[in-house]
């Protein structure tokens, strides 16, 4: 057994010690997302966009080579925290990015931004705590705060004149945030409100039957990833698609559409980025992504692409000299990059001030399911928490 122990020690040395030693002249970025399990498709979409960003940058920032380390959070906060810790302490990355889930981000924030004093660019999750009281000089977001997207949807429902609404979402923190968000701006009559089990509910027949009985003018849902597929399918199968239109946030996107197919046609959603936004960088991004992967990118991907481009802008401005963190942060805060959503500016809490659009699910000329912009819901929107943030 002593030899066994020695063997184990050797393996440990190989695993920990002989990992590729990063050359000093590279910019190291850690990217934490979900690459295994039921939500792995989201992580894959983000990774493809990161890779595309690197390609567009020519593999370099500020004259230095870019090294990316991907880590899988397995959709678990403690694993995400441990992986983030590894990126900061062992790989000694200059930036950490990614994070699909609020709870994974919240678990990792302290390790990365406080104890690691490393700049963290959130590419999807935007819990209200971090927009407000937990805001951090090292945290930047290229996405949104949870409340904003549904709030934009609520505004649109008002202008469209939808008089009554039934809201449904999963019974966990982000689900409650999303429904609270739409209720905050929507002025019509709330016909009902259901929270479903998370993440193990696969059947929505009871809720759909209730909605059918309540006869609202619209349904509002929030079901990210695979759950969106399930809800939209069952909504269409129940026949409600003929009587009650579906309004959604984060439930119908480029990742879920191949599965939802024509059942999702005509549904409306709110989003801060749509694949047909008319700016040059977005056209290039979408075209190249489609050429490579034969599918549309999602907002997860677009936000990840923006995260890399934001980092690149700071590194370029400092000509690759990342020694002074204050300078890096100052450059990050300028947001001097060409975002896929056009104008991009940070609020005091380092969340974007941005437009939200209404998108409709359509078929493109080639017969592929996608979404297209049909209206601007709100312009230059700020999240409702930035005043709680101590950074001014």
């Amino acid at each position: 057994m002593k030899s066994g122990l020695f063997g184990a020690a050797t393996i440990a040395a190989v695993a920990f010690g002989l990992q590729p030693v990063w050359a000093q002249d590279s910019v190291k970025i850690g990217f934490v997302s979900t690459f295994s399990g039921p939500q792995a498709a989201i992580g894959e979409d983000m990774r493809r966009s990161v890779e595309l960003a690197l390609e567009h940058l020519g593999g370099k920032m500020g004259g230095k080579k870019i090294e990316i380390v991907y880590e899988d959070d397995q959709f678990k906060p403690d694993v995400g925290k441990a992986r983030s810790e590894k990126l900061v302490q062992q790989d000694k990355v200059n930036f950490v990015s990614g994070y699909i889930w609020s709870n994974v981000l919240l678990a990792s924030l302290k390790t990365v931004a406080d104890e690691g004093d490393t700049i963290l660019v959130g590419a999807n999750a935007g819990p209200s705590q971090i927009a407000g009281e937990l805001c951090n000089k090292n945290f930047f977001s290229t996405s949104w705060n949870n409340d904003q997207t549904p709030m934009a949807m609520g505004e649109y429902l008002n202008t469209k004149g939808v008089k009554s609404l039934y809201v449904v979402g999963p019974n966990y923190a982000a689900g409650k945030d999303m429904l609270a968000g739409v209720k905050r701006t929507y002025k019509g009559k709330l016909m009902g409100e259901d929270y479903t089990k998370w993440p193990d509910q696969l059947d929505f027949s009871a809720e759909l039957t209730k909605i059918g009985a309540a006869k609202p003018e619209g349904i509002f849902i929030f079901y990210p990833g695979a759950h969106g597929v399930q809800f939209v399918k069952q909504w269409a199968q129940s026949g409600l698609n003929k009587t009650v239109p579906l309004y959604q946030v984060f439930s119908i996107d480029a990742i879920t559409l191949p599965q939802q197919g024509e059942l999702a046609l005509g549904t409306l959603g709110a989003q801060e980025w749509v694949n047909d936004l008319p700016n040059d960088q977005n056209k290039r991004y979408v075209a190249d992504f489609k050429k490579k992967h034969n599918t549309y990118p999602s907002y997860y991907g677009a936000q990840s692409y923006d995260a890399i481009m934001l980092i690149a802008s700071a590194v370029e401005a400092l000509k690759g000299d990342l020694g002074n963190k204050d300078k890096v942060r100052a450059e990050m805060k300028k947001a001097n990059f060409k975002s896929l959503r056009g104008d991009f500016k940070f609020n005091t809490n380092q969340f974007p001030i941005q437009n939200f659009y209404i998108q409709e699910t359509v078929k493109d000329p080639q017969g592929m399911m996608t979404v297209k912009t049909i209206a601007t819901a709100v312009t230059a929107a700020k999240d409702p928490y930035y005043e709680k943030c101590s950074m001014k």
Partner: protein
Amino acid sequence: MEYLLIQVLNGVQLGLLMFLLAAGLTLTFGIMDLVNLAHGSLYMMGAYIAWTFVTWTDSFVLGALLALPATFALGMAVEAVVMRRLYARDHLDQVLATFGLILFFNELVRVLWGPAGKSIAVPPFLSRTIEILPGVPYPAYRFALIVVGAVVAILLAWLVARTRLGMLIRAGASNRRMIAALGVNIELLFSLVFGLGAVFAGLAGLMAAPISSVKIGMGDDILILAFVIIVIGGIGSIKGAFVAAMLVGQIDIVGRAFLPDLLKTVMPPASASAAAPAISQVLVYILMAGVLVWRPTGLFGQRA
């Protein structure tokens, strides 16, 4: 009234789906004394295999008919390679090994089918609503689920109560050593039972596919519910699994459909809509704990 009927049907449909999954689990548990955490993986594999065949043949029925023997074969293979060596072992060794199998199958699916989920469309002849009562529409596919589930339940009841295989199964569930002593070909019996359980799990997976989505890990969460059901029903008892599945189906629907309104009569609406999902989420666990405190071996169980 129609509303009530539809919600009851929703519960029956959910219960039957769970019964399919629980039946295989309770059989392998009762006869081979095997704690098979990987039963959910067979559910997932059934769905993925069905997806492959449905895509290939472009027909749901044909794809399903091809997928069932394939799942049976997969079940037999898993039995021959791993499970067979576990029957005589401690429950804990079984937990460890089948936990390993879950990880393996989840990754295998990612390697073979990619990380994105798959979708099986409802077959065209079922993608409409039917009127179960005049003026009361119900999705045809869900109605078909109820029919298939009920037919399988009856078949299984017949198999267990009236055939030689069923007799051995019953004998095995109440006294394992006895059937070995009777000179029955135990190895074959065990393989068959495991394969049968795999088919039921696969059937549940492929039937759930059109209303849900075919995804990695789809069997992991539902597995816990299946365990809850067989424990409430009493391990090894098909009848128990059926009753418990029906009970769980109805309780689940009650919690989701009626509890919020019920709570609103005793508390302010805001706290009612907050409390209802929390309570409905734990209802089945409360039911299970209650049943076990009252009857420590489940409703129809014979031994611990």
